[in-house]
């Protein structure tokens, strides 16, 4: 299983986070490297799944920026190869696609967050930092997908209600995320601490990763996504 809460040791060692890029477009890698160069340490790049798997294992970066669509299997294949053997490496999906099945697929495979390629460098740096600290990065769109996924089946048979249902509080947090609130604004709105917001978000992510495949595929099929 994936490590959940913040893990000591995954935090940056010398203040600068070690980031690894996986993307099949060299131009895009160069662009991200140029944008992030001053803020984090980009320790390596890979353009294929096989290359990514071997080099991430060798480099041990803090955060991997992972593209969804690549010719030989995509980000999901990298995640599935790495997550058991290297649980300390965090993955942040960075994709041009914000299609529901891509987003949810990557999150379920174990990515800690999902941002699109139109994100600004500042926001991307912030997302990398949050992922490295053990948080989840939820874009409003991702929150919307999750709400959709969990809301659209009130009468569905649930194997483990504790696991598969969102609590009211988690739902509230997700709604505020989808409405464009930042974590600290959510905390203020709901009179809870930022830490509690982060816990709720992490729990949502865990539930998303664990809720069974059948339900999700049905959800996708209902929306003619697959």
């Amino acid at each position, binding site marked *: 299983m994936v490590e959940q809460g913040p893990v000591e040791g995954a935090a940056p060692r010398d203040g600068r986070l070690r980031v690894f890029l996986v993307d099949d477009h060299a131009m895009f890698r160069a662009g991200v490297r140029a944008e992030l160069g001053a803020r984090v340490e980009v320790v390596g790049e890979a353009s294929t799944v096989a290359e990514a798997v071997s080099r991430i294992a060798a480099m041990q970066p803090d955060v991997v920026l992972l593209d969804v669509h690549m010719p030989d299997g995509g980000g999901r294949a990298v995640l599935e190869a790495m997550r058991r053997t290297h649980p300390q490496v965090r993955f942040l999906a960075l994709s041009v*696609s*914000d*299609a*529901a099945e891509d987003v949810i697929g990557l999150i379920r495979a174990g990515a800690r967050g999902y941002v699109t390629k*139109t994100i600004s460098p500042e926001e991307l740096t912030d997302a990398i930092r949050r992922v490295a600290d053990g948080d989840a990065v939820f874009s*409003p*769109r991702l*929150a*919307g997908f999750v*709400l*959709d996924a969990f*809301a*659209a089946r009130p009468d569905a048979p649930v194997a483990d209600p504790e696991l598969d249902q969102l609590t009211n509080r988690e739902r509230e947090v997700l*709604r505020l995320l*989808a*409405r*464009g*609130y930042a974590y600290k604004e959510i905390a203020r709105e709901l009179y809870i601490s930022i830490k509690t917001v982060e816990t709720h978000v992490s729990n949502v992510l865990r539930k998303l990763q664990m809720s069974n495949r059948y339900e999700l595929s049905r959800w996708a099929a209902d929306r*003619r*996504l697959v």
Partner: protein
Amino acid sequence: MSSTATPHPPRLYRATEHRLAAGVAAGLAEHLGISVLRVRVAFMVLLGLSGLGLLLYAAFWAVVPPRPGDTAVPPRRDVAQLLPFVAIGLGVLLLQVVAFDSVGAAGTAGWLVAIIAVGAGVIWHQSAPERRRQWGGSMAVPWLGAVVEESDRRAFVLRFIGGGVLVAVGIIGVAAVYSPAQNFDAVLNGIIFALVGLAGVGVVTGPVLWRTWNQLRSEREARIREQERAELAAMVHDQVLHTLALIQRNAADVKTVQRLARGQERSLRNWLYKPAASPTERFAAALEQAAAEVEDTFAITVETVVVGDRETDERVGALVAAAREALVNAARHAEVRTVSLYAEVEPEQVSAFIRDRGKGFDPDTVEDHRHGVRGSIIGRMKRHGGRAEIRSEPGEGTEVRLILPISGSGSTAERDR
């Protein structure tokens, strides 16, 4: 027909040259290294043994693949190809006359068998579309082409049934001739014979029909693929290339470039991922269209997230209009580049939230004559039985909340309560 066989082919294939029907005989001859004539004669002789030859031929046809590589250039053929079937019929007739030396009942039976053979031949030939098309191409007489060529499926079915009827009539005739007793058993026997005969034809033509069907299907699939590709090419040409050209011309104007790029991204995304829904019918589509209009008009980004969906009616339409007005206000006054739009459809209510992180304002100071907020948002929501809240503080940005209670599941709209 001569067989110029390549020496020792490694596998048994159906020949595509020098063939009469499916190239089984020619292929066999080539494979065995004997004259094709001998193979054909063998088939003909076996045909006399309760149609064994026919069955064997069909079996070979079904399991032996055509020679690979040859299929692309099938040889041209003409009406003369029908002759073998006539020949088969005549041969059987001759066999009857010569071998059994009888012209009476047996002779009639021979004629009937000949009819069967021709009928089966017609069916057989109808069943291979490739050959039929060649016929149509090489046909000198138009009306004959119309008969033989595959024009549409109905004609094909008609001709197929015609052939089948011919076969059935022949078989029933044979039964009637051989057992002229005018009782019920004889008729029953005749029918059974006919059924057996039809089953035989079915066995013969089954694989061919199956192949025909597959061919038609793959042809249709190829056509659909081609159509989709053409559609994609047209879309890329009409939209993407033109947008890129405009961007190159306006490279200095950042706002224009961003607006063009955003519009293009949105349209590509919709094309790739979203099933097309009509904005006049579905809530989510209507909201997205409103957001797109605001994006294009004011050169800002509207981050739209819609959870759930429903049909629109007048009240839901009012909510969309109010949301649009709120987006316009944010774009105009908030001085931001991004506005969030979140909407959710729940069983008992529809809600929308429009939030920006702009400069904000004090809602109490909005003057009464400002219609944007009071009339288009608050008033409109009230008139349709909903409510609007505006939260804003200077420096903190603004959030407009639109909530519309709905009753029932669908399009029941209670107006103006």
